[in-house]
């Protein structure tokens, strides 16, 4: 059974296995297909048109399905590997063990933002950025640039308190839990973390940075936490909404999975703490 753990609690062997599985997916070419898929959705999801992966109610079930697929790919390399999550309300500086050389490596150097330590540094020749929007083929970061701050637990708590899952017009201007968690409105949780990391994480090809998965695993856990806090609230909209994935509609690119199928994460994995 897959148990997703807080990254801060992983032991050296768990970190090593996770990193090695990432490197093997990268070597085989499978990793980059996930980057390509994500970018295709981020470029085509619009507030006024079809929207599936982002800026819409299905942001959460879409990414849940995307992470399950990625986790299964990791497990096809090493069956002991599960996706860890990064609680950025707790591990909120560039000195966190998350950014140590034995795990994800640190921030980028001043000159060009290039990450120079850890397994994902370009100099190791095992992490070339192939799916890219500019000419640079090395992983970049600028952790906390300009004094930016990660969200606090109090800010997260204020979003978890929102009873309504999502509201019309079901996009980046919506009120409700989903859009506040995504960050287009209000205190800004998910979007702000992408910006705090910087480099490729701030772009449409954000899964080029392995921290993408740890960030989204925590966003996914917050959805589970929200469900536990509001057992009478559920996914919205229910039916008949143009351009938007209703509860029982299938989601691209899989076309065989609906938000309803994704509501109960325990069919796929559990967390190290009760949600």
């Amino acid at each position, binding site marked *: 059974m897959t148990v997703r753990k807080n990254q801060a609690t992983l032991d050296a062997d768990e970190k090593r296995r996770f990193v090695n599985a990432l490197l093997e997916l990268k070597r085989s070419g499978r990793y980059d297909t996930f980057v390509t898929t994500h*970018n*295709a959705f981020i*470029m085509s999801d619009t*507030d006024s048109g079809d929207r599936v992966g982002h800026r819409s109610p299905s942001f959460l079930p879409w990414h849940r399905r995307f992470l399950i697929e990625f986790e299964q790919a990791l497990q096809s390399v090493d069956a002991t590997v599960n996706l860890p999550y990064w609680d950025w309300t707790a591990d909120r500086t560039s000195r966190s063990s998350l950014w140590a050389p034995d795990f994800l490596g640190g921030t980028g150097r001043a000159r060009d933002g290039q990450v120079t330590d850890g397994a994902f540094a370009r100099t190791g020749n095992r992490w070339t950025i192939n799916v890219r929007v500019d000419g640079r083929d090395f992983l970049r970061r600028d952790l906390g640039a300009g004094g930016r701050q990660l969200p606090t637990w109090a800010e997260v708590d204020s979003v978890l308190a929102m009873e309504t899952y999502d509201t019309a017009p079901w996009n980046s201007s919506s009120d409700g839990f989903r859009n506040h968690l995504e960050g*287009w409105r209000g205190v800004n949780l998910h979007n702000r973390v992408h910006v705090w990391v910087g480099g490729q994480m701030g772009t449409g*090809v954000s899964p080029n940075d392995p921290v993408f998965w740890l960030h989204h695993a925590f966003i996914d856990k917050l959805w589970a936490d929200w469900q536990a806090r509001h057992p009478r609230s559920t996914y919205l909209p229910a039916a008949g909404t143009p351009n938007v994935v209703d509860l029982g509609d299938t989601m691209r690119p899989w076309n065989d999975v609906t938000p309803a199928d994704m509501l109960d994460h325990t069919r796929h994995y559990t967390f190290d703490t009760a949600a």
Partner: protein
Amino acid sequence: MSSITRRRALGVAVGAAASGVALARSAAAAPGAAPAAAPAPASFDEVYQGRRIKGGASHGGGHHGGHHGGGYSVTIDGEELHVMRNADGTWISVINHYEPVATPRALARAAVRELQGAPLVQLTLA
């Protein structure tokens, strides 16, 4: 887009002298889009940190599928920067995708700073 909406958009385009601007406005006024009151942003053309940035209403030709600038296009040294307008009238690009800014010019400048001299490359959608 319904035929009624299409006719209305065409009417707006014909009625305005600056048809490019009107097209941008009509695209933004598609069903479920930003409030129609959001004005189409001005075009611009400048050299910023040594790079030529241009923005203005696009005219349909030469666009890749999946581009959703709402009728507005931005280039950096002649290469198209994928941009998108949010429902509240703010803008993001493929380079700064999680941090909305007020105008396409601010977006182009943010991209130039982020690129640190690197060229844009066009990515083919899957």
